[in-house]
Structure formats: C-alpha cells, structure tokens
C-alpha cells in the first residue's frame, strides 16, 4: 500500500480485534456456498461478489499474509495476499455498501461463520485510516458533540417538547397528558430519536397506561456502531447511561430502532464491562408487556387494513425479539399477515448497516431491497409495520421505487392509533348518552 501508515493502522486494528470469534470467522469456511442464497444482495443479483463467503475471503487473504506461516513465505500456496491501496479501497466499499451486517448468512451457515463480524472489522479499519464514509463519521461526531455540550440544544429541545405536549393533549383529549423531560426518579427513561414521530406515539401509550416516565434529551441512534468504532460508540452510549444514572431511573426504554437497541441493550454492558443499575429494553418489549398484563386495553378494529410485519435484523436475529411484535399486532390489527420467510429467517430490507444515511448508495440499496419488496407485495398488505427507524426509511424508499402502494408504520403508531380509536369511541358513546338523557 502506498501509504505505509495506513497499512500499519489496518493491521493494528486487525491485531486489536483479533479475538477468538474473529479468528474463527477468518479461519473456518467449508466453501459450501450455502450462505449465497441467504444474502439479499445475492438473491437480488446472483453474482460471485455477492456471496458472503467471497466477501470474507477477501479479508482472509490479507489475514493469511500476516498470520499464516505459509501465507508469509509461500503466499500462493494458501491464497494469501499483500494489502495494497486499491485492494483496501475495494474492501472498504464492500464493507459499507454491500453488506448490511444483517447476520442472515451466519444463521444459515452450517458452521456459523460470522461474515458480518469480518465486515465490521473492515469498517473499523476504514474508520481508523480515514476512509469511512464521511456522513457516518459526521453523524457520530454530532451525537458526541451533543453529549459534550448539552447546552447548545437543551433549551430548544425542551421548548420543542412543550409544543409536542400541546399536540399530545389535543390528540388524546386529555388535558393532563404530559411529556416530562429528564424527570429525576421516574421509573422509565424513554430514549427517542430526533423527530416528533418517535416521541408522540410512545407519549400516547405512556400516558394511557399511567407510566411514570420521562424523556431523554438524547437520541438513541448510534452511528459509532456502523463505523465499527467502539470508542465513538461508547461515547454516544455513555450520554444515555450517565443520564439514566443521574435520574436514578429503573428502566431505560429504547425507541423503535434496531441498531440503537443492539448498541444499548446488548453491546453496551460489554463495552463498559459493567452491570448497569437499571434495566435496558426495547419499547416493543414494554408495550407487549402492557398488553399482556392487561394494563393496556386495545381494539384490533382500530387498524382494519391488512398489515404485514418486517422483522428488523437487529431486533430479531441479534435480540430475539420475535414474539413481542406479534403479540402487539394480534392485539391492535384486524388482519395481520406474516410475510415469508419471517422472524429469524426474515430478509434484510437492504437499508441496514447505516446505508440509509448514505445517499451515494441509493441505487445499490434499492437493488438489494428487491427481495424485501417482493415479500411485501406477495402479502397484499396495505400497511407494512416495522420497529426500526432505518428499516422504515428503507421501506418507504422501496415503496416508492417498486410502486408497492403500501404505507409504512411503526408498531407504536398502530398501538397509539388503537388508543385514540378507543378514546374516540368512548367520547362518542358519552355524547350519545348525553343526547339521550336530554
């Protein structure tokens, strides 16, 4: 590679991350090719570059050059290769635009080869050598800036929330409905995303069940994860962990966002080697619990159009959140139709891994989303529900690109709609009774 500093950095990252799972992923592969059909890129465009094992093999070549005895001295014997600038650029392009880290290949591989882990390491190498997509770096750094200087936005944020609170009161007809911000001692700290659409529906739900909750001033998204950059990811997560500790909450509830859940629920305890003094869960789990316990009464008539559900890769394959979305849908939707395959075997929408934030890869992600578009079309559903912001953005784009004629909604949107439907029915009944008695 022309720039020796970069080569050094690339190998430094490899060395640093070379734990047992990565070693296994770099040394084990039966070359059976089963993973090909598991990858939505390959299903959409069956070419060798889209086979997961091919992707991992490109990294294995440089790994062997350094870590395999024959690779060092007779590289051709074991297909080992020296890393050069062009090869590295190709690896970076592949890791950021041709793998959404969806883990479907790993689940389908008879040996459980973790190709997305290998792609994550390439992302980390790219970030360390300044070759990661600038937009992802910018998004991660903006989130870190918020944590370091909350005064630059906090006042405006609180003002915005008070506007949203007015909207909430109007929507629910409940003059006492509230959106508390950073309330000390609340039971639940809800962490939304930037944008009203991730605050209003959960606020409707929390107010309906009388939850003792408060809103975080931060957003749950964590672009450090997409960069494979644990240091940045930790800084972004730490804002929320510190906030939760300061407010002494019992639970942190993460908005509908797959990678944010992955970061806060499953990765953060390892990053900080710490057992937090609070529980961290997805809002999907909490809402399912409200319904199951009878705390939240909803009516499936509220959402009468056929609905299908797209499992976010992070929630389903990384988090095992499979039953909860279905429990919610059975409760709030009249005609719920599964797409095929679903659950653990669901196809990625093509927008994961940070791709939806990278406009330069729009065409690539539309092509990669073709299997998902076909799955949706086959259900003949009118609404596609998803519990992940990235998925929703991608599904909306697929809807336009493939003329699917659907509407994309969050699970919490459907639940909030069911609550408002009940409220309208109650007030209609009350009006009727009042009319009868006069």
């Amino acid at each position: 590679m022309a720039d020796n500093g970069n080569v050094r950095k690339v190998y430094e990252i490899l060395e640093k991350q070379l734990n047992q799972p990565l070693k296994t992923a770099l040394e084990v592969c039966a070359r059976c090719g089963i993973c090909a059909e598991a990858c939505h890129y390959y299903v959409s465009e069956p070419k060798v570059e889209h086979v997961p094992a091919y992707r991992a093999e490109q990294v294995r070549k440089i790994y062997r050059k350094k870590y395999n005895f024959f690779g060092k001295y007779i590289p051709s014997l074991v297909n080992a290769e020296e890393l050069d600038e062009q090869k590295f650029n190709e690896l970076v392009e592949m890791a950021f635009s041709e793998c959404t880290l969806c883990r479907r290949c790993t689940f389908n591989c008879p040996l459980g080869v973790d190709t997305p882990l290998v792609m994550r390491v390439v992302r980390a190498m790219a970030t360390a050598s300044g070759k990661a997509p600038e937009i992802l770096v910018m998004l991660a750094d903006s989130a870190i800036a918020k944590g370091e200087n909350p005064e630059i936005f906090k006042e405006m944020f609180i003002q915005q929330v008070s506007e949203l609170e007015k909207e909430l009161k109007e929507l629910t007809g409940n003059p006492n409905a509230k959106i508390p911000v950073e309330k000390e001692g609340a039971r639940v700290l809800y962490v939304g995303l930037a944008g009203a659409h991730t605050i209003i529906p959960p606020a409707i739900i929390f107010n309906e069940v009388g939850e003792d909750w408060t809103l975080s001033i931060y957003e749950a998204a964590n672009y450090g994860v997409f960069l494979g950059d644990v240091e940045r990811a930790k800084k972004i997560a730490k804002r929320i962990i510190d906030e939760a500790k300061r407010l002494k909450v019992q639970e942190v509830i993460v908005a509908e966002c797959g990678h944010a859940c992955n970061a806060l629920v499953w990765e953060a305890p390892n990053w900080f080697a710490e057992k937090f003094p609070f529980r961290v869960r997805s809002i999907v789990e909490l809402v399912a619990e409200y319904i199951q316990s009878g705390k939240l009464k909803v009516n499936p008539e509220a959402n009468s159009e056929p609905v299908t559900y797209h499992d976010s890769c992070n929630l389903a394959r990384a988090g095992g959140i499979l039953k909860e979305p279905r429990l919610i849908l059975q409760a709030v939707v009249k005609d719920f139709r599964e797409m095929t395959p679903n659950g653990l075997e669901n196809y990625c929408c093509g927008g994961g891994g940070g791709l939806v934030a990278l406009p330069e890869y729009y065409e690539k992600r539309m092509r990669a989303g073709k299997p998902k578009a076909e799955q949706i079309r086959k259900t003949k559903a009118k609404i596609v529900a998803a519990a992940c912001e990235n998925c929703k953005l991608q599904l909306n784009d697929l809807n336009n690109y493939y003329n699917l004629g659907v509407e994309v909604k969050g699970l919490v949107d459907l639940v909030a709609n069911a609550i408002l439907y009940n409220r309208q029915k109650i007030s209609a009944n009350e009006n009727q009774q009042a009319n009868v008695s006069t």
Partner: protein
Amino acid sequence: MTEQMKVDLVLDLKGLLCPLPIVKLSQAIKDLPVGAIIEGIATDPGVMADVPAWAKASGQELISIEQRDKEYRFLIKKVK
C-alpha cells in the same frame, strides 16, 4: 435575520426525517465556497437539536435557528 443576509443556497428539507436533514446539509455545504450562507427549511423538530450539534462537530457557524409556525429555519455560514 434571513431578510438581511444574502443567502447563497436555500435547502428545502421539508418532510425529511432524522438523520436526512443533516445528511443533506453536510452534502450541500461541500460544494460551496468558504463564506457562503445556507438557509435550511425543515419540518422535523429534530433539527433544533441536530443542527446546532452538527455545527459544533463540523466547525461551521450556526448564525440562527428558529421555529416559524410548523417550520424550522436555520442559517449556516461555511467557515472552513
């Protein structure tokens, strides 16, 4: 404030949800010369927190940010 300043580019960010407004903003600023002023108009209240943080992280100058009815308007000066 907007009225007094010569705006070099108006970015229509209406209807875009997080993180797209700041993605579009950072793309647009790249093609402008230092000293240029961008006016952004968005409908997602998330920009009220995201744009100041983006300005801080990217070293650009946030001249103003305000809400007008259902829209959020901001002025950014490219300083580097």
